């Protein structure tokens, strides 16, 4: 199921936050959305999840406009992990993960067990969320999305608050999901992670899509210089590259 933006523009008050974004995202890929602050990355992710209404254009999932889909059908196909790690009530990890089954209106015991296993949460599943570390909570929130077994996983800066080990662990889970056929779209600030772990990178600047392609092409020194205003170059081998300034 391909997820596409067809000339999507989003306006907030008088500001054009996204300007005619055109892209076709493929299942099986990890796609990173990068760009400087205020470029419209989170807005694009929200538009893909139909959480903001485009002023023009549409988001299409396998020939169907997501805005026209029933909310539960959309939720079964598109899982969204917001940047905020808010959990209002001190539920157990297992109950938190089970929220991912809400669009399916079932208990989904097997799917919940599987998501808990994928995120290595077996030992923590009865613990209240308030007792988890930041990394454990991030894994639990990802497991919540995985429990819904969506075709698409959209995550807004899921690695931002994590140390390196937890970042790599979460990327491993997301890679497994992509290899199993899901589409994964991540908003990432860390260009090195995007370079080394994404299959495809979209770069936004001031609401416009300025680069779209393989990490090597979309995160070239020229794009980084134009997008972020930073002179930088990549060193190392593909898969373990580092950005130096």
């Amino acid at each position, binding site marked *: 199921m391909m997820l596409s933006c067809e000339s999507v523009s989003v306006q907030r008050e008088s500001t054009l936050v996204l300007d005619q974004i055109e892209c076709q995202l493929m299942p099986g890929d990890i796609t990173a959305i990068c760009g400087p602050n205020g470029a419209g990355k989170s807005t694009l992710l*929200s538009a893909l*999840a139909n*959480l903001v209404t485009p002023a023009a254009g549409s988001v299409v999932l396998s020939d169907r406009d997501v805005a026209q889909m*029933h*909310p*539960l059908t*959309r*939720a*079964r196909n*598109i*899982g*969204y*992990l*917001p940047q*905020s790690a*808010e*959990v*209002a*009530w*001190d*539920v*157990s990890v297992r*109950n*938190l993960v089970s*929220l*991912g089954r*809400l*669009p399916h*209106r079932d208990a989904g015991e097997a799917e919940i067990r599987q998501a808990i296993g994928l995120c290595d949460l077996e030992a923590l599943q009865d613990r*209240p969320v308030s007792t988890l570390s930041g990394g454990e909570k991030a894994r639990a*929130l990802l497991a*919540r999305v995985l429990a*819904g077994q969506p075709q698409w996983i959209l995550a807004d800066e899921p690695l931002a608050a994590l140390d390196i080990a937890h970042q790599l662990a979460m990327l491993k889970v997301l890679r497994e999901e992509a290899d199993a056929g899901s589409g994964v779209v991540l908003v990432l600030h860390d260009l090195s992670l995007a370079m080394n772990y994404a299959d495809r990178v979209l770069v936004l600047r001031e609401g416009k899509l300025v680069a779209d392609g393989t990490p090597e092409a979309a995160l070239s020194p020229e794009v980084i210089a134009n997008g972020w205003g930073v002179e930088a170059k990549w060193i190392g081998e593909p898969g373990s590259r580092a950005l130096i300034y």
Partner: protein
Amino acid sequence: MTRATLIFAMLLAIAIPLSLLAGRVWIDLETTPNAALILAELRLPRAVLAVVIGGGLGAAGAAMQGYLRNPLADPGLFGIAPGAALGAVLAIYFGTASTVLLTGSALAGACGAMALLALIAGRTANPAHGIALFTLAGMMIASLAGALTSLAISLAPNAFAMSSIVVWLMGALTDRSWDDVTLAAPLTLAGVLVLWRAGRALDALTLGEEAARSLGVNPRALMGMMVLGTGLTVGSGVAVAGIIGFVGLIVPHLVRPLTDKRPSSLIVPSALAGALLVLVADVLCRILPLVTELRLGIALSLIGAPFFLWLLLRMRRGLT
């Protein structure tokens, strides 16, 4: 049936027959004159009304706390009951003698207050500001409704009307009949059912509004259910018994430790626990050796205000 539901259902099943016997005069079925009449016409409707009103307030409090993601939410403190009271007082002020009109006016007041609160709740961008914002917004609505109610009282056509409004506002189950039960029970039951139906969406809101929407929750439909559910439960309760505060605040906190803490798990046991709390408080009001019977609304405020302070202190400890 969950553990909390079972516990409070059993306690309620024990408390109801005991409450029928308790009062300024304890009823002995064999020796008390007209015992059957007193039970059937005075004690039983009063007990059933306590269960109905307490059940509605408990469910409304649990649902409001889930909806606003705020453990301090309460239909009384956040303006829903004062909104209902304003509606009812306006009906009295404009001279309606119809109980149905008075009830309808109270329901409209409760729905209006909840809709206002929900609109403010829907506009919070930063969840970290939510608790303070909703609490202040709720208290603003309560103050406004209270001020308008006071204005209506001060402009009352005569001293008798003024006195009857003030006494009614204090909240009590004294001298209530089967007519009041017939009026409040179906509305409250309908309201509890609506709130119960909202349970899944309230669970999703645990993750914040954006995540809830991504899980298929329709915010407008949920808001409609909350306005209708709290309007029916709180409005019908206020219409027949005046303002009985703090039930919706206290009860979910008593019930939550016995549940898995999901908002949906809280609604039915909170209804049962609310029924139990109001029933027991009403019995205590009856049996306390005072010159006149203590008003139920006052008694629950005397319990609820220190409880609210305790909650605030506990939350402050959690934040520091």
